[in-house]
C-alpha cells in the first residue's frame, strides 16, 4: 500500500493558499452558483436573523441586541441626515443603511478563518491534504464584481427614483442641464450652451458612477484578500521556511494586515455609502449648485 506523501501532520503545518483570479469561481457541480453568492447568502441570513432577533420584541428600555441595533441605526440616520438633509433622509436612509451594513458585514466576513482557504484544489492525496485551493468554498461577497455591481445598480435605480420624485422629470433635467449659480438676464442666456455641455458631461459621469462604485469596492477588497494570501505564503515561498517555521510565518506575517483589512473593510463601506449619499444630495437639492 502506497503511503501518501502528505499526512495530517504535514497539512497542519502547511499554509493552504487561495486567492485565485478576480472572477469568483463557481462551486463545483452547482452551475453558475459562485462562492461569493454563497457568502452573500450567509451574510444576508446572518444580518437578517440578528436584526430580527433584536427587533422582534422591542421594548421602550432596550436590551443588549436591541440597544446595539438602535445605536447603529440612530448613528447611521444622523450621518445620512447630515448629508442628504432632513427632508430626503427618511426616503434615502433605508437604502444607504442597507448598503453600509451589508458591505461592512460582507467585508468583515471575508476576514474570518476558512474564507478563501477551504475548498477544492490540488493535493498529494488523502483527506484534508490540499497544497493549494483553486476554488474556495467561501469568498468575500464584495470581492466579486457581480455583487459590487449589483449594489451599485440597485443604488442607481433608487437614486433615479428619489431624484425624480423630489424634483420631477423636468426639474431633474433643468438641474442637470440648466444654468447654475443664480444667473439672470443676458448672462444666463449667454452661458446656457456651456451649461448644456457641462450637463452632457454630467450625464456621462452619472453613467459611469455604477462602474466606479463597483470597481472601487471590488479592487480594494480583492486586493486585501490577495495581500493576506501573499503574506500567508511569504515565509514558505520567498523566505524558504518549511514545516513549523513555515506554519508560524504563515500565521504571524498576515496578522498586521488583518488589522489593516478590518480598517479597510469599514473604510470601503463608509466610502461607498458616503458617495451614494452625496450623489443623492446633489440630485435632490432644490438649490442651484455648481458642483458635480
Amino acid at each position, binding site marked *: 500500500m502506497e503511503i501518501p506523501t502528505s499526512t495530517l501532520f504535514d497539512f497542519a503545518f502547511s499554509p493552504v493558499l487561495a486567492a485565485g483570479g478576480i472572477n469568483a469561481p463557481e462551486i463545483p457541480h452547482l452551475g453558475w452558483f459562485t462562492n461569493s453568492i454563497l457568502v452573500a447568502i450567509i451574510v444576508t441570513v446572518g444580518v437578517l436573523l440578528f436584526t430580527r432577533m433584536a427587533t422582534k420584541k422591542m421594548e421602550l428600555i432596550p436590551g443588549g441586541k436591541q440597544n446595539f441595533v438602535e445605536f447603529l441605526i440612530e448613528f447611521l440616520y444622523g450621518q445620512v441626515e447630515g448629508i442628504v438633509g432632513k427632508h430626503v433622509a427618511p426616503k434615502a436612509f433605508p437604502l444607504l443603511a442597507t448598503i453600509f451594513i451589508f458591505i461592512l458585514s460582507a467585508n468583515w466576513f471575508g476576514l474570518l478563518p476558512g474564507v478563501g482557504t477551504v475548498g477544492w484544489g490540488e493535493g498529494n492525496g488523502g483527506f484534508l491534504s490540499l497544497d493549494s485551493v483553486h476554488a474556495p468554498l467561501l469568498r468575500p461577497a464584495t470581492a466579486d464584481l*457581480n455583487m459590487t455591481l449589483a*449594489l451599485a445598480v440597485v443604488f442607481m435605480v433608487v437614486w433615479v427614483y428619489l431624484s425624480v420624485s423630489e424634483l420631477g422629470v423636468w426639474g431633474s433635467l433643468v438641474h442637470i442641464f440648466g444654468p447654475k449659480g443664480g444667473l439672470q438676464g443676458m448672462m444666463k442666456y449667454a452661458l446656457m450652451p456651456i451649461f448644456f455641455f457641462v450637463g452632457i458631461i454630467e450625464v456621462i459621469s452619472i453613467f459611469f458612477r455604477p462602474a466606479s462604485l463597483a470597481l472601487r469596492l471590488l479592487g480594494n477588497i480583492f486586493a486585501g484578500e490577495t495581500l493576506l494570501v501573499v503574506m500567508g505564503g511569504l515565509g514558505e515561498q520567498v523566505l524558504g521556511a518549511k514545516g513549523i517555521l513555515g506554519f508560524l510565518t504563515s500565521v504571524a506575517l498576515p496578522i498586521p494586515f488583518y488589522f489593516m483589512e478590518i480598517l479597510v473593510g469599514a473604510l470601503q463601506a463608509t466610502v461607498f455609502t458616503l458617495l451614494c449619499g452625496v450623489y443623492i444630495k446633489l440630485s435632490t437639492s432644490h438649490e442651484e449648485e455648481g458642483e458635480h
Partner: protein
Amino acid sequence: MEGIIEQFGFAWPKFIAQVIIVLIVYFVLSKYAFGPVLAMLNARRSRIEEGEANIKKIDAEVARAEERIQGMLDDANRDAERLITEARESAEAVRGQKTQEAVNEAQQIIEKAREASRLEHESSMNELKRDFGRLVIDATSKVTGKVLDDGDQKRINEETAGQVAL
C-alpha cells in the same frame, strides 16, 4: 469591452442573483429593522419631550405652590401676631380687672372683718358692762344687806355702765 467584463467575472445569472440578494436585504431590513427601530426611537424621543414638558409643568406648579404656601405662611404669621397682641391686651385687661376685683374683695373682707371686730368688741363691752353691773348689784346688795328692786338695779346698772364707759 465584453472581454474585460468577462475577465472580471461578470455574468448575468450571477449578477441577477446578487441583485436579488441585495433587494431582499434592502426590503427586509427596511420593513423589519429600520421601520420598527426608527418608530421606537421616535416614540422614545416623544416620550422624552413629553417628560421634559411635564417636568417644566411640574416645576411651574411647584413654584406656584411655593408662592401659595409662602402667602399662607405670611397670612398665618400675621394672624398669629395679631392674636398674640390681642391675647396680650386681653390678658392685660383681665389681669387689671381681676386685680381690681381682688383689691375690692380684699377691702370688702377687711371692712367686714373690721365691722365684725367692732361689733364683737361692742358686744363684749356690753356683756362686760352687764357682768360688771351684776357684780356691782350683787356687791351692793351684800354690803347693804338690802334686797334691791328693779329700779335700783336699773339705776345701779346705768351708773356702773356710765362709769365703765369712761
